[in-house]
């Protein structure tokens, strides 16, 4: 081990050999460190790249696909939306508050690195059950960290999700998404172009924090992970706020050739990636990097993941103006190097060369692994599980209350009341509906935003689960009246060197790709997070889809709460015998088994078209998709959100547990004024979508019967106590 230092840094013997052959010599310690971080899975995607090629990435409205700091889609009128989601799972498992906070900080820098003004955040979170103290600690810490960083930045956290399952105990998922707004001509890329141009480091000083964070993110969590705490960065949201304003001022004055944030792998990654994109080289002098601590070695400077820093390449002659603007915001800007022509990434310490490697060797020559794939053994038994043998519950009221109190379904107000979701005064639909909606000041249009991903479905059928993640995200947007435009994704998986995990990964991506294709929502980027394992056990395969949609008229937005007595409730789509992987199965029978619901992409597309058309034509008062907990829970959520009851009668020949709690896809509940219900039904019929009037809004109870026989009859108050009280009660 002692004479093989690369192993300590996470490189294999073969990878080391390859580095030697690329350099024509053995690398020195610094060069080895640079290769180790750049060739980590986190930076190189060496295990995922071949599979990610399955994703469709193009559409006329996609201005920037994968490969940049963030994706960009056109929203008309010369405006564009910049967005990306990224994981910060490993740091959050060790130090939840700072881990989550710096996750937010990192994704925000990706957005303004493109020149865009960040306008909103979403967070998709997964934890183990709250019955365990460690999970409560992680959950409160993560939420607190997101609140601390996002609130201070003045960015509204407008949505996201939280799910709990034993599979995430010890390895929580923290995926942060940021959305920015920009005028097309201000778009910037992370380019180190123009030989001889200065390279400037702006923002915070460089310290010893986060060294080898990217490597840490690319290994399994174990008992030794606690000692990785120094690899977790510490955030300073105040400084980030200054950095946002200063960098946007640089864009406003058109002073830059390129800009890139310093995230994973710090200067090593930012410098080499900027040069790589531009096809240039770069020379950096670590002696000129402003330090927070004394005695730092070149190795520490080049690998530090200190937060709130950006690398910029100013236009020739603009260096002084860049410095002035940064100074106005009490920040430093220092020329630390220059763009070169020789394709080499040369690191100096004053006048001594301490490292010199080809840029492309770091960014592009990393080996790519096509991992062996094997269908996991667990699938056969779980998918064949005989769910029809399970007994019907005796008391459906009890079941609905238990589901409403399940932390996966319960109101997430405990979480979002800690986030400032209103700052910037653009949030017109905040957390707690299917998707968040932002208005755009001075325009008629609006943006709809959501995240989605059901790990349980993906565990039981990766391909179907992957497709459903995309379909449900799109359905959420459609339920607001928005046209889905594109996605970003965070792919959270176990160790890809295990054939079963590689198989899950491949099939999830395949399913997602098919859904993206069918629903015309290409992938514009994202992030892969492997090695989410503790004690050798992987999390559920968990893709998180972050989706952006456009409302042509934001005044026509729709929400999920019932609005008026007498409105007709219409169910679009059909309920089938599909309780596999459902929340009902988990809560009532303690089971994660069966096949997840089937998704017919053609049907899905038509259902969503009907929903959007009905909303745009002003026919609909409320809309909500049927997801976890099925129709009964969706109905209860609409009633609770609108503080107005409902009375519905269902038909069909399924057992009650099925038509109440089955999670069949492509179903949406709509509420319409009685005089407009006919038009809604006609729209559906024309599109070949099943639509049934099932009841009416009114009163202060939710009453569900089957062909006149009562099944559920609950007061709103009683349901609200369960739904709203669950998370606060779990957390004491």
């Amino acid at each position, binding site marked *: 081990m002692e004479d093989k230092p690369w192993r300590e840094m996470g490189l294999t013997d073969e990878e080391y050999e390859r580095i030697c052959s690329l350099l024509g010599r053995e690398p020195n310690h610094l060069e080895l460190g640079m290769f180790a971080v750049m060739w980590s899975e986190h930076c190189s995607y060496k295990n995922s790249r071949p599979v990610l090629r399955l994703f469709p990435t193009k559409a006329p409205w996609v201005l920037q696909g994968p490969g940049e700091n963030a994706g960009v889609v056109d929203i008309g009128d010369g405006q564009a939306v910049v967005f990306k989601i990224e994981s910060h799972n490993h740091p959050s498992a060790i130090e939840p508050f700072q881990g989550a906070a710096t996750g937010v900080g990192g994704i925000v820098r990706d957005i303004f690195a493109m020149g865009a003004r960040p306008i909103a955040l979403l967070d998709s979170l997964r934890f183990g059950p709250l019955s365990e103290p460690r999970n409560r600690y992680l959950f409160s810490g993560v939420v607190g960290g997101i609140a601390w960083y996002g*609130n201070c*930045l003045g960015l509204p956290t407008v949505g996201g999700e939280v799910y709990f399952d034993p599979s995430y105990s010890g390895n929580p998922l923290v995926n942060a998404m940021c959305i920015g707004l920009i005028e097309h001509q201000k778009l910037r890329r992370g380019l180190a172009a123009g030989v001889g141009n200065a390279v400037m480091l702006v923002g915070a000083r460089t310290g010893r924090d986060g060294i080898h964070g990217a490597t840490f993110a690319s290994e399994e969590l174990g008992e030794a992970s606690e000692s990785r705490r120094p690899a977790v960065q510490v955030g300073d949201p*105040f400084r980030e*706020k200054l950095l946002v304003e200063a960098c946007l001022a640089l864009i406003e004055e058109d002073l830059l050739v390129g800009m890139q944030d310093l995230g994973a792998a710090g200067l090593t990654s930012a410098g080499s990636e900027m040069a790589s994109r531009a096809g240039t080289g770069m020379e950096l002098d670590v002696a000129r990097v402003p330090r927070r601590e004394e005695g730092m070695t070149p190795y520490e400077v080049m690998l530090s993941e200190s937060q709130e820093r950006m690398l910029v390449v100013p236009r020739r002659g603009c260096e002084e103006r860049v410095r002035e603007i940064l100074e106005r915001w009490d920040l430093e800007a220092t020329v630390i190097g220059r763009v070169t022509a020789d394709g080499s990434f040369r690191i100096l310490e004053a006048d001594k060369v301490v490292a010199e490697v080809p840029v492309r060797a770091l960014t592009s020559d990393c080996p790519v692994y096509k991992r062996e794939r094997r269908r996991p053994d667990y699938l056969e038994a779980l998918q064949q599980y005989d769910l029809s043998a399970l007994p019907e519950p005796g008391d459906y009221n009890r079941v609905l209350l238990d589901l409403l109190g399940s932390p996966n379904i319960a109101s997430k107000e405990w979480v979002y*009341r*800690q986030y400032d979701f209103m700052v*910037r005064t653009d949030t017109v639909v905040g957390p707690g509906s299917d998707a968040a909606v932002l208005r755009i000041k001075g325009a008629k249009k609006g943006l709809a935003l959501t995240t989605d991903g059901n790990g349980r479905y993906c565990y039981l059928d990766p391909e179907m689960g992957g497709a459903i993640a995309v379909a449900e995200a799109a359905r959420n947007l459609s339920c607001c009246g928005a046209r889905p435009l594109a996605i970003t994704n965070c792919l959270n998986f176990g160790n890809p060197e295990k054939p079963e995990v590689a198989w899950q990964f491949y099939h999830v991506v395949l399913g997602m790709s098919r859904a993206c294709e069918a629903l015309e929502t290409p992938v514009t980027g994202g992030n892969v997070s492997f090695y989410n394992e503790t004690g050798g056990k992987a999390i559920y395969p968990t893709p998180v889809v972050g989706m952006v949609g456009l409302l042509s008229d934001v005044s026509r937005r729709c929400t999920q709460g019932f609005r008026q007595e007498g409105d007709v409730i219409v169910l679009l789509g059909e309920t089938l015998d599909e309780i596999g992987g459902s929340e009902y199965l988990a809560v009532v029978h303690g089971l994660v088994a069966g096949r997840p619901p089937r998704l017919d992409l053609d049907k899905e597309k038509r259902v969503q078209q009907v929903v959007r058309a009905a909303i745009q034509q002003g026919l609909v008062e409320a809309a909500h998709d049927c997801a976890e907990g099925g129709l009964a829970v969706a109905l209860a959520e609409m009633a609770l959100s609108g503080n107005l009851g409902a009375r519905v009668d269902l038909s069909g020949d399924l057992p009650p547990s099925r038509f109440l709690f089955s999670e069949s896809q492509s179903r949406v509940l709509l509420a319409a004024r009685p005089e407009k219900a006919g038009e809604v039904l006609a729209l559906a019929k024309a599109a070949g979508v099943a639509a049934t009037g099932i009841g009416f809004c009114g009163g202060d109870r939710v009453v569900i019967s089957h062909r006149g026989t009562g099944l559920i009859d609950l007061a709103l108050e009683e349901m609200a106590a369960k739904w709203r009280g669950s998370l606060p009660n779990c957390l004491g």
Partner: protein
Amino acid sequence: MQFGVIVFPGSNCDHDVYHAVGAVLGQPVEYIWHAEKSLRGFDCIILPGGFSYGDYLRAGAIARFANIMPAVVDFARRGGLVLGICNGFQILLEAGLLPGAMRKNDCLQFRCQDVYLKVENNHLPFTLKFKGGEVIRLPIAHGEGNYFADPATLAELEENGQVVFRYCTPAGEVTAAANPNGSVANIAGIVNREGNVLGLMPHPERAAEEILGNTDGLKLLASIVEWWEGGGRYGG
């Protein structure tokens, strides 16, 4: 009527209040950089919400030393209208323009939600469009909004009608359950003795447009304009 919005490093509601005063209310408004030293030409100064200087040390504790603050104190002493919202309120307390102090919310967490407020004093330039005792709804978003004043100061505030807004139920009852942060006497906003410096934790600028679902906050901003246009002047 010329409004000025002070921008401290870390202010983050400066754009919002600028939008509410300028685009919604249609009044001239300018940003004032914290390093400036003069407030000449302004008729009303707004200290916006946010996290000035990161709220490090204590909310508002560093901002009170900003270059612009002596001018704000002078402007207020000469009778100019000063409105501090959220972090702006905290800064006014730290600067001694309003009495009392702010502690962390009693729940020890940040709180973002709508609250109901009872308008206790509608005879001010900031509140004349409200009815006395009117119940309004405004959003709050803060981690340190737990107002405190010692009993003597509190008695003085009450006696002089300086308590302007109190957290209440939708029906207007001032109860412990309606208090989102533990503030003494459910205080959400106070005014100085002279009536020209108002500080409040809720955000009127977030409730200033139909599309945001609430225009109660616009009434507060519009009161200022109405008072001014009606010839209202303080000091000079």
